[in-house]
């Protein structure tokens, strides 16, 4: 009458399609939430999804039900004090003490509908208008390091590298090979001797010859060495070239009065994209934030994007600081150094030539790539012109101009096209 079925191994994502339908339907709201969330998120946080909240009233499914008012009669349990005819003041915000439920059913409840989207969904939504590039084909030119790896065995080497098991295995094989036929001859001779001694009249001459042969064979057997230099095997090592997995990304940003929050958000997206790109190529990517007005300062992410500080603009201060940090902490021999500078293009005019010089002499030789993005709807100023001039001779330098959010991806793609092998 009954049978059991084990369904645990069946797929559990039966609702995946319905979930996608939900996300598809509320894409606008979810994208809005993702955009809002980006400001709360760290540049380097790519591993987590995002918690999305949509106003509950947007997703209610309407249905006809009884409204408030009229005459309602309800039965409740647990009477501890009432007698018939008692009058009770009307409880606030509910009909007849029946409590919750009514308010939100009207769609007036203000609780948000909160749910989580996965990391992939988050990135898809974040870069939806940007469409991520095919990262695999754009392998970056990386620094090479050598690593020693095991590579089989060899017959010569230093005693420290002797592999005992391998050597003894060789010794055993050699001993078997060198003594097998002698042992056989010895057994044969001993058998003949035994036969001879059983005979009625022993042939003394033959017996002596056999004894001599036996002792000779025994001697030769004993002469086979237990271990020979021929047996020795040494572990072999080779040096293998390997691209280093260490990378550091410098984020330079102008925080002078002319950079507003919207501009910073655009820069942040660019940084996230760059970080995402680098983290596909390198195991660990460190990020250094340098912000500057007339003075540069290394700061943490929070301060980088959200600290309120204004002043004039001297870009070279940031470049100097970056160079100092490289000298102190990031040896270009070991680190793949990337830099992205975001600015609205304002700079103190006399500072720009200095920047160009700093870049070409000090920084560009050390870095793998230097991207300058100018986020402004206006015309270029002196800094851009200086950099532009520099670019002709410096393939590592890339300049791009971003006017609005949708420019970010094309710009990004442009930047990394050059690197394609």
């Amino acid at each position: 009458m009954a049978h059991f079925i084990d369904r645990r191994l069946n797929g559990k994502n039966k609702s995946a399609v319905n979930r996608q339908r939900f996300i598809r339907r509320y894409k606008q709201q979810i994208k809005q939430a993702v955009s809002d969330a980006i400001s709360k998120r760290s540049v380097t946080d790519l591993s987590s999804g995002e918690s999305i909240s949509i106003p509950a009233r947007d997703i209610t499914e309407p249905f006809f039900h009884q409204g408030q008012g009229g005459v309602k009669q309800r039965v409740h349990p647990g009477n501890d004090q009432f007698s018939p005819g008692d009058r009770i003041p009307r409880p606030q915000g509910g009909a007849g003490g029946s409590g919750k439920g009514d308010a939100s059913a009207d769609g007036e409840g203000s609780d948000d509908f909160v749910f989580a989207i996965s990391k992939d969904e988050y990135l898809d939504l974040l870069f939806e208008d940007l469409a991520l590039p095919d990262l695999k084909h754009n392998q970056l030119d990386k620094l090479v390091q050598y690593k020693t790896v095991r590579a089989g065995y060899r017959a010569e080497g230093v005693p420290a590298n002797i592999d005992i098991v391998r050597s003894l295995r060789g010794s055993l094989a050699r001993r078997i090979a060198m003594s097998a036929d002698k042992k056989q001859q010895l057994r044969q001779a001993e058998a003949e001797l035994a036969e001879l001694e059983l005979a009625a009249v022993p042939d003394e001459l033959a017996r002596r010859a056999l004894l001599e042969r036996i002792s000779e064979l025994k001697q030769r057997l004993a002469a086979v060495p237990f271990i020979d230099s021929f047996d020795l095997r040494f572990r072999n090592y080779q040096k293998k070239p390997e691209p280093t997995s260490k990378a550091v990304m410098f984020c330079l940003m102008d925080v002078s009065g002319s950079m507003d929050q919207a501009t910073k958000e655009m820069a942040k997206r660019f940084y996230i994209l760059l970080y995402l790109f680098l983290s596909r190529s390198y195991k660990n990517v460190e990020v250094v934030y340098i912000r500057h007005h007339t003075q540069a300062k290394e700061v943490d992410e929070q301060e980088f994007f959200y600290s309120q500080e204004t002043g004039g603009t001297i870009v070279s201060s940031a470049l100097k600081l970056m160079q100092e940090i490289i000298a102190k902490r990031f040896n270009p021999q070991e680190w793949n150094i990337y830099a992205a500078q975001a600015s609205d293009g304002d700079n103190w005019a006399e500072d720009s030539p200095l920047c160009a010089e700093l870049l070409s002499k000090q920084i560009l030789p050390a870095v793998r790539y230097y991207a300058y993005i100018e986020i402004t709807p206006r015309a270029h100023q002196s800094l851009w012109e200086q950099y532009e001039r520099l670019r002709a001779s410096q393939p590592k330098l890339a300049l791009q101009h971003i006017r609005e959010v949708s420019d970010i991806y094309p710009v990004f793609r442009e930047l990394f096209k050059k690197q394609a092998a």
Partner: protein
Amino acid sequence: MRSVALSKGPCLPDGPDWSFELLTQYQQEIARVAAYYQLDTYPNQIEVISAEQMLDAYSSIGMPIGYHHWSFGKKFIQSEQQYKRGYMGLAYEIVINSDPCIAYLMEENTLPMQALVMAHACYGHNSFFKNNYLFRTWTDASSIIDYLVFAKNYVSQCEEKYGIGEVEDFLDSCHALMNYGVDRYKRPQKISMAEEQRRQQEREAFLQSQVNELWRTLPAKANSNPAEAHFPAEPQENILYFIEKNAPLLKPWQRELVRIVRKISQYFYPQKQTQVMNEGWATFWHYTLLQHLYDEGRVSDRFMLEVLHSHTSVVLQPPYNSKYYSGINPYALGFAIFTDLRRICEQPTAEDREWFPQLAGSDWLESLHFAMQNFKDESFISQYLSPKVIRDFHLFAITDDSQDSSLEVSAIHNAEGYQQIRQMLSAQYNLSQLEPNIQVQQVNISSDRALTLRYTPHNKIPLGGAIEQLMRHLHRLWGFEVVLEQLDHNNQLSVLARCPTPHHP
């Protein structure tokens, strides 16, 4: 009087871990005892699933197969979210009214819990599905799975042909009126999967021509009498059915979608009307069956303690002023009524003889089966809610008249109040009083084809819900103007809403 025949036997292992062999052993024991109590069931198909799969089952309102729709995704996300944050424990089981009766057991349950769930779902609910008159009348357990498969495939086909967005919008409109897609009096016909498909093709070709028939201008208009011009002749309560058959502009596939939503709504209609009875019955039987096994010595003390622990939390009824109170617990009320029914039969008091003369002293098993078979919540409560249960629950009735500044306690658990409380509690489970009474009143077939719906308030309770939005859904389905009017208690007609909204120049 029935005497309990105990067949003593060896004690079964009590877990806590379960295995399929143990489940089979327990299932056989429970089946044996269930047969002894004459529980008539569909064959059981017991499926062990994981927590994630349980969440999947939740979102499709317990249907094993469902068509795709964003609202199920929303439910899934909601329950997943609540579950992850620990606001909600998962149900121990879900049982589906089908033949064979499908029951889901969660793999996380301990062995005593699995046994409890099997007794509850596979013998309690299952026998209820098979024997209650509402389920016998309204649902066809043998064809529901086939129908769901058909519905799912049909909706997918429509999505391919007409686009996901189009189908989704249309289903939204149908879902909004889901509660008005139920025939309350007509018996739906049992048909097989193949038959359903054949008929669907036929309908598709035929229906469209029939609809146009409606709008044919008759040449002999002058001598038609005004009564005939009134369409429909009688007000129609099944709005979705009316739309499916009569909406002028719907395409054949849209009519089919209306039908699918309507059918599924109809399938769930008996469950909405028998919550207290169904849960009460299942709870009564898991308790009785396992207690029987315990009396026989087949299950251990440890096993029984865990079962009783779960049982008591299931039938917990917090009082009105508790922070856990959220209405009357159908498990508690149903269990109390069935248990008391048995007591009335076996050990009647003078009060019982006065209130239930036909029950006192009768065969309890027969009386219980009769009660399960022939009632729904509303009639069950008005028939069987005894003064003792009212006293045990300390029930009291509140009258809330919005004209009044305060609420009135109209009855409590005393001799004068029993009848009134019983009546009011019964009304509280009367779907026709809970759901607003909206019916198709008229279609202007000779002029602008406007559809008029009429809301008749019960106890002067106004209509709630996002009416504007609902009118737009109705308009999408009907295709022409839709008017919603209200007939209030002193026979005054007023227009509540219309769609499209009239222009005021």
